[in-house]
């Protein structure tokens, strides 16, 4: 189930990032992509709980409106909410049988072509900060070793969240979470600015931003601010 080549790539890249200054949202997107490659899942997303324990979308392999709906609904019910509450991974290999458990989420996920769903907690001591959500278009059975690997990837997301500014400031968890949630909003706002300015869909706008940030060694959140303030012309992102 677990692909060892992509796992090694992920390990090397993520370790490399975490020792230096990095952009949290960008990192979480990479982590979602790595998780998808490693687990052969079709779609992977990450949700964080805010100070009111409401789950908020942070990053995913696909952030099309279609997929966003799958994350949004999990504020009411779904594997992420369950995982967030019970502090344990939630493994469902056959979504078509989960209609009793999640009467709104399960049919929605099935209607988007998914047949399995798993959620892994972002654990920190006795708390859970959020969840990593893994969707498969096929029934995606996971054995114990697979579960441990994907849980380890969820743990890396927690480490990234804590690490982001740990060197710069002694911050509480709440401060770090608030910073992360706000960064994500900045990036959404910038996507809108780029999409409108360049006449592209928001998903393409995000790709343009990521590509530019990578090429210019810029942090995604700083690039987002430059887009919104007009410091940089969104047209410069087109290559």
């Amino acid at each position: 189930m677990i692909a060892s080549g992509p796992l090694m790539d992920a390990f090397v890249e993520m370790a490399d990032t975490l020792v230096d200054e990095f952009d949290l949202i960008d990192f979480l997107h990479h982590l979602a992509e790595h998780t998808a490659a490693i687990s052969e899942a079709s779609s992977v997303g990450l949700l964080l709980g805010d100070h009111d324990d409401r789950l908020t979308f942070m990053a995913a392999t696909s952030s099309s409106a279609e997929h966003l709906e799958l994350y949004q609904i999990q504020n009411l019910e779904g594997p992420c909410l369950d995982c967030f509450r019970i502090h344990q991974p939630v493994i469902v290999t056959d979504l078509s049988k989960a209609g009793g458990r999640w009467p709104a989420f399960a049919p929605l996920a099935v209607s988007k072509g998914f047949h399995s769903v798993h959620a892994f907690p972002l654990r920190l001591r006795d708390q859970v900060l959020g969840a990593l959500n893994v969707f498969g278009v096929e029934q995606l059975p996971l054995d114990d070793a697979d579960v441990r690997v994907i849980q380890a990837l969820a743990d890396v997301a927690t480490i990234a969240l804590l690490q982001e500014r740990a060197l710069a400031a002694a911050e509480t968890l709440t401060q770090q979470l608030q910073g992360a949630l706000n960064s994500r909003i900045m990036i959404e706002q910038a996507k809108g600015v780029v999409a409108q300015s360049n006449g592209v869909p928001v998903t393409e706008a995000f790709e343009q931003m990521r590509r530019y940030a990578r090429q210019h060694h810029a942090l995604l959140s700083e690039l987002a601010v430059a887009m919104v303030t007009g410091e940089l012309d969104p047209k410069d992102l087109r290559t």
Partner: protein
Amino acid sequence: MSGADGDPWRRRRDLVRSSILAHLDNDEPGLVDLLAALCRGAAAHLELRGAAVNLMSSKGSEGVVAASDAACKDLVEMQFTSGEGPCHDAFALRRPVLAPDLASAREQRWRGYASLAVEAGVRSVFALPLHVGAAGLGVLDLYGEHPGALDDEQVAIALTFAQVATEILLDGRLTTADGNLDPDLESALDYRSEIFQAQGMLMIVLGIGLAESLSRMRAHAFGHGSPLVDLAHEIISGRVFEEGEI
């Protein structure tokens, strides 16, 4: 979200709302009255010395718009005469800055400001940015006369006060058009991605500021009694709003 009693979001929103109402001293409150009541309510609920809302922009401080009392207004302004302080940092970093003991040896961030504040009888400062992503409106400063950190529940309540202050600044009110408080129309700063994407798009279309873009979207949605996210979907799917239409 359901209105279940167990929903911490709903519970904290209700608490903040009733706290503002309890501290209003005006039957037809304007923006400043609401924010002053919010400052008094936050201080009372969190058992702190006082609070103030300072408006800010990328150019710096735009002045204290409301405070629980004159001394707290001074405490904010002191930060701008000394050129440093939690308010500055919270706005620049876009995250809460919590200083539970200004007199502590570990508190080296703003030595000038800390000694001025301690002299004025303040030992703790909690500065919460009034931000929506890259749109920064100001900072809610909370002042305590004793050293001590806020516990998790107090931090969550303080953040709710800051969210409501942000909404008041965006909407210019806490009320519906008929002057009544209408909890059904109240919308939290929803975290849905589409709202912020649409905010960025509308800003470019109309050539307005980022905060104003969200203000207009909220006013339009409230005015039509429709969810903000529906309007966001319309904007993203290409509906063009002309100036004056939204």
